[in-house]
C-alpha cells in the first residue's frame, strides 16, 4: 500500500475489561464501536465500511444500523484485525469506502453469547490432531516449543523471564488485569498446564473488545484526535495444524508478514521506537523478535534477558502488559493495535517518550496466520 495514505482516526476499547458477565459478544463489539465512534466524533451513518472476525460483518453492520459499501469478514484468528486494517487501507485507497469501522468483542471468560471451541471430525485438524488429546491453545500453540528450546538452548527460566518483564510493564497500566510483580521462581512454581508451560507463561482469559476507525490521511486532519498513519502492512497464512508448521523453530507466516510490512514502510529495525508482539504464550515474543528480524535466530532470549524490551530498554515491547498480564479475550490482536495507536497518540499508560514508529505484530490460530501493521504519527 501507499505509505501514510490512510490513518486511524478513532480507537477505543470496551468501557470495561476483565469480567463482564452482563454483556454478550455482540454487545461487546457494539460497546467498543460506539466508544471508537465517540472518539472520532462520528455516528453510525458516517461509517460506510465494516470489518470484523468472530461474528460476521453482517451481524455487526445490522446491529449498529450501518449500511456499508464495503464488508470484510476475514477470520484467521487473533491477528484478523491486522488483516482488516491492511485490507481497509487498500480499500480506502481504491475508493471502495471512505470510513471503515473494525471491531472485536469476545466473552472469553464469561462466555455470554459465545460459541464453543471445536473442530469437525472430518476436518484436517479433526482427523490428524484432535484424536491425540489436544484441548485448547495451551496444548497446541506450545507443541513446537521444545524443538525451539533444544535448537537454541533456551531454558524454562528464559520463557519465565518473558512473563516477568511484561508484568513490569503491566504494573504501569491501571487497566491491566495483573499488576503485582512476579519473579522467575514465581512463574516456574505456578501450576503446570502443559509441560514446559506453567500457568504464568499462558495468557489471561478475559472479556472485552476494541474498535478502530480508518479514513484517508487527507481527511484525517479534520478529526478530533491526532491521526495515526499507516506506514506499512503485511500478512500471511501458514497452516491450520501446528504439527504441520514448515519449521518448528520459526514462523514462516511471521517472516513473510514482517518482511512485507518493513518493505512497504521503507524503514529499518533501528527506526522502530515501540513494538507489540501478540503474546498468547511466553514463547511468542521470542519467535516474533527473531522472525521480524530484530534478533538473529536463537538470540531473542538474551535480548530479553538483557532488558532491551523492558522499561528503559531500547525496544519497549508489549507496553500494555500484553496478553500475559493486560488482557486476552481470545483474539488479542485488537489490543496490540490499540496500544500501538495510544503510543502514537502519546496517550499510553506507559508512554514511550517521543515514539514516532510503532509496530503491532499479530498471530492467528496456532501459528496459523500473521499480520503486521507499522504505524507512525508523522506524515
Amino acid at each position, binding site marked *: 500500500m501507499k505509505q501514510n495514505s490512510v490513518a486511524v482516526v478513532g480507537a477505543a476499547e470496551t468501557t470495561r475489561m476483565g469480567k463482564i458477565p452482563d454483556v454478550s459478544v455482540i454487545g461487546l463489539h457494539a460497546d467498543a464501536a460506539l466508544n471508537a465512534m465517540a472518539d472520532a466524533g462520528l455516528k453510525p451513518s458516517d461509517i460506510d465500511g465494516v470489518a470484523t472476525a468472530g461474528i460476521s460483518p453482517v451481524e455487526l453492520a445490522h446491529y449498529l444500523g450501518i449500511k456499508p459499501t464495503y464488508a470484510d469478514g476475514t477470520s484467521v484468528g487473533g491477528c484478523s484485525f491486522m488483516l482488516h486494517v491492511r485490507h481497509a487501507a487498500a480499500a480506502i485507497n481504491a475508493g471502495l469506502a471512505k470510513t471503515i469501522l473494525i471491531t472485536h468483542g469476545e466473552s472469553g471468560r464469561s462466555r455470554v453469547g459465545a460459541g464453543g471451541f471445536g473442530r469437525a*471430525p472430518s476436518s484436517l485438524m479433526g*482427523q490428524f490432531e484432535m*484424536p*491425540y*488429546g489436544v*484441548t485448547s491453545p495451551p496444548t497446541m500453540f506450545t507443541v513446537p516449543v521444545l524443538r525451539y528450546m533444544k535448537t537454541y538452548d533456551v531454558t524454562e527460566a528464559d520463557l519465565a523471564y518473558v512473563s516477568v518483564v511484561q508484568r513490569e510493564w503491566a504494573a504501569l497500566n491501571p487497566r491491566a488485569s495483573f499488576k503485582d510483580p512476579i519473579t522467575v521462581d514465581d512463574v516456574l512454581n505456578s501450576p*503446570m498446564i*502443559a*509441560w514446559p508451560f506453567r500457568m504464568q507463561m499462558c495468557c489471561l482469559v478475559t472479556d472485552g473488545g476494541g474498535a478502530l476507525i480508518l479514513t484517508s490521511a487527507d481527511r484525517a486532519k479534520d478529526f478530533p484526535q491526532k491521526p495515526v498513519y499507516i506506514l506499512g502492512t503485511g500478512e500471511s497464512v501458514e497452516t491450520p*495444524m501446528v504439527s504441520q508448521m514448515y519449521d518448528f523453530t520459526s514462523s514462516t507466516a511471521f517472516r513473510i508478514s514482517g518482511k512485507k510490512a518493513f518493505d512497504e514502510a521503507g524503514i529499518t529495525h533501528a527506526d522502530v521506537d515501540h513494538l507489540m508482539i501478540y503474546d498468547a504464550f511466553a514463547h511468542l515474543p521470542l519467535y516474533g523478535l527473531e522472525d521480524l528480524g530484530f534478533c538473529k535466530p536463537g538470540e531473542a532470549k538474551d535480548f530479553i534477558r538483557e532488558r532491551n524490551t523492558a522499561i528503559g530498554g531500547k525496544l519497549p515491547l508489549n507496553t500494555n502488559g500484553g496478553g500475559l498480564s493486560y488482557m486476552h479475550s481470545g483474539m488479542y490482536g485488537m489490543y496490540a493495535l490499540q496500544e500501538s495507536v495510544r503510543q502514537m497518540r502519546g496517550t499510553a499508560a506507559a508512554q514511550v517518550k517521543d515514539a514516532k514508529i510503532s509496530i503491532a505484530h499479530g498471530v492467528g490460530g496456532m501459528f496459523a496466520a500473521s499480520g503486521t501493521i507499522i504505524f507512525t504519527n508523522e506524515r
Partner: protein
Amino acid sequence: MARILPEPTPETRHFWDGCREGELRLQRCTECKTTYFPPRAFCPACASRSVEVYAASGRGVLWSYVINHRPRQDMGTEPYAIAVVKLEEGPTMMTNIVGCPQTPEALVLDMPVKVRFEKQTDDISLPLFEPAKS
C-alpha cells in the same frame, strides 16, 4: 467417554484404511518424488496430480511435544504427551507416545520411535508411536 476420533474423507480414506490394516500409508509424488502429509490428491510441492500411496517405514524420531496436565475428558485422568514425530520419510505427524512414562525424563527429543496401531473401533485405529531401539 469415548475417545474423539477422526472421520475420514475420500481424500484421507487410504490413510485410515492403512491404520486399520496395520500399515502407515503415506503419499508420494511420482514426478518430484516428494513424500507429504496430511493426505491430499495432489503434490503440495509441485501441484502434480500424479501421486501414489505407499507403505511407509513407520519409523521416525520424537520431534517435539507438550505434556498435558489438564487431560481432556476422553483421554483419562493422567497427564499425557501430545507429540509430533518426524517420520523417516520426511513429514511431521501429531501423535501420542505410548509404552513409556509420560515424563520429560522418558521423552527425550530425537529418540527413535516406531508406529503402533491402537484399535478404537472397527473402522478406526490410531497411529501411535513407541520408543524404538536405534
